[in-house]
């Protein structure tokens, strides 16, 4: 798939995100828009997935992800980008995106396995837990002699959770080198900038000191850069160290008035704001 095609999908995913959050009158558009390019690059090009289709025409989903790459989302509040990407990739009907955060929906506020939505392998939302789960699954892949990789995305505010650092010390100690982690470095969290709320300081130095192979990517919203850094990271797996990609993104990327501040972390656009946002995002596939 070409860069242009991936960018087109990303634009549609961004439309889905703002429409979902608008439709639910709640949700988290900022971080979702910031991580769109990463998720599209992973699911539409870089991850090896089982492409078999079921009777319903959707991708068949197996919880154990045998001989597939597996992605976990730890900062579960950016569920809109996860749901849209999974749906656009073919795991479930895009119509279902319209039920986001509604009663009796599989598309819950935060990702869950409870409603058996295809593509989701763990509940997330209470922060700091995803990397531990990803490490466990990476260990299972090693025990199973399955050579595929495990990816895990966390937020930068999430780095304030203690469990993250428990996991950070475990992975290098046990040489979990089939794991590629990302921190979405957008510098924002609910109460303001991470710098003001609780400064993460030098995450590169911290992870290096813990024994990780750390890669920095300054252009987390440029598809070509994202693809390049993913290729680079994959080449560095299997060498005894887990890989950490510090991915600089812009919260709200793609919608001008949502960028550059923490204000759109967890706020839904009103009708007028939705129109303004959609005017900046051409529909490349069909809206749900």
């Amino acid at each position, binding site marked *: 798939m070409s860069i242009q095609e991936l960018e087109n999908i990303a634009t549609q995913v961004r439309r889905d995100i703002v429409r979902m959050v608008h439709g639910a009158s709640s949700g988290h558009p900022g971080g979702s828009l910031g991580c769109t390019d990463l998720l599209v690059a992973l699911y539409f090009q870089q991850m090896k997935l089982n492409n078999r289709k079921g009777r319903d025409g959707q991708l068949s989903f197996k919880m154990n992800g045998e001989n597939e790459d597996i992605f976990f989302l730890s900062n579960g509040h950016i569920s809109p980008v996860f749901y849209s990407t999974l749906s656009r990739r073919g795991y479930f009907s895009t119509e279902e995106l319209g039920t986001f955060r509604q009663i009796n929906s599989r598309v819950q506020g935060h990702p869950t396995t409870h409603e058996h939505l295809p593509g989701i392998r*763990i509940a997330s939302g209470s922060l700091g*837990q995803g990397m531990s*789960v990803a490490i466990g699954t990476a*260990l*299972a892949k090693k025990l199973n002699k399955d050579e595929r990789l495990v990816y895990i995305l966390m937020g930068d505010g999430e780095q304030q959770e203690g*469990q993250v650092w428990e996991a950070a010390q475990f992975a290098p100690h046990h040489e979990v080198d089939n794991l590629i982690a990302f921190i979405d470095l957008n510098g924002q969290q609910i109460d303001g900038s991470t710098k003001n709320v609780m400064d993460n300081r030098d995450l590169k130095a911290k992870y290096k000191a813990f024994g990780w192979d750390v890669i920095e990517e300054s252009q987390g919203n440029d598809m070509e850069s994202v693809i390049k850094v993913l290729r680079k990271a994959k080449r560095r797996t299997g060498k005894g160290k887990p890989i950490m990609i510090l991915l600089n993104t812009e919260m709200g990327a793609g919608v001008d008035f949502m960028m550059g501040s923490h204000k759109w972390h967890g706020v839904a656009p009103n009708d007028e704001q939705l129109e303004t946002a959609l005017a900046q995002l051409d529909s490349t596939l069909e809206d749900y």
Partner: protein
Amino acid sequence: MKKYTYTETQDTRSGFGDGMTELGRTNPKVVTLCADLVGSLKTATFIKENPERFFQCGIAEANMMGIAAGLTIGGYIPFPTTFANFGSGRVYDQIRQSIAYSDKNVKIAVSHAGLTLGEDGATHQILEDIAMMRAMPNMTVINPCDYNQTKAATLAVAEHVGPVYLRFGRPKVPIFTDPNQKFEIGKAWHVNEGSDVTIIATGHLVWEAIQAGEVLAEKGISADIVNIHTIKPLDVDAILKSVRKTNCVVTCEEHQMNGGLGDAVAQVLARNYLAPQEYIAVDDSFGESGTPEALMKKYGLSSSDIVEKALKVIQRKQ
């Protein structure tokens, strides 16, 4: 009345360890994790025989629970192990989100539960874990009573699909259950037949209940003794069958009075069949340092306390 005797004492955690040894040899999907307490959890043989199926997590229980959840995704049956204090309250949210809500096949196996942890004192004597774990949807809660039952429970939970909290203890206690028993999750064990008072007991309190039954028999009172090893799902039928016969009940547990086995039984009675109930449990307080025997006595969890409560609850029958 059936007489129970014993020739040997052993800690319930050794029943767990020996169960794990057997699982290591018979079930290639069983793996174990530990947070720096391998000696206490008695898993050394499993680890020696299956080093690739053991993950030392260091003193980091939250991460251990998450890693266990992740291992299930690849088809494994993980037993994360630590003290009950660190495998429940300390990591409640991790268990809730990554294990119970996510419906992961994790067997949380914890030792040193309750007062009988002894000399280390209240910081380590968890007395709230049954309450916490039975409040959690999708969680099975088991508290076996001796070495044999703990070993059988360990084998049984590996076969069961779904999250389990398996709670056992530190001190050596009499071995009085059948070494060849088949452990059925959610099925009570009818320890002794009686008609005057029901005694429902779990964990270390089952032996105390049996002894209390003998003392009561000398006084001409026959106790119907029921062992509830699975606190959730609760064997409601067994409880009601017994209480319908005796019309009063004493519940016995090494746990807080609030939210434990006693409250689970009280809920059954309130909803189905009203009968007076007395509790053998710690009454809303923390423990302290001391020998297990001294603590059980001081906090009212010994067989003589059960006798006293049985006489009292019989008096309350109308």
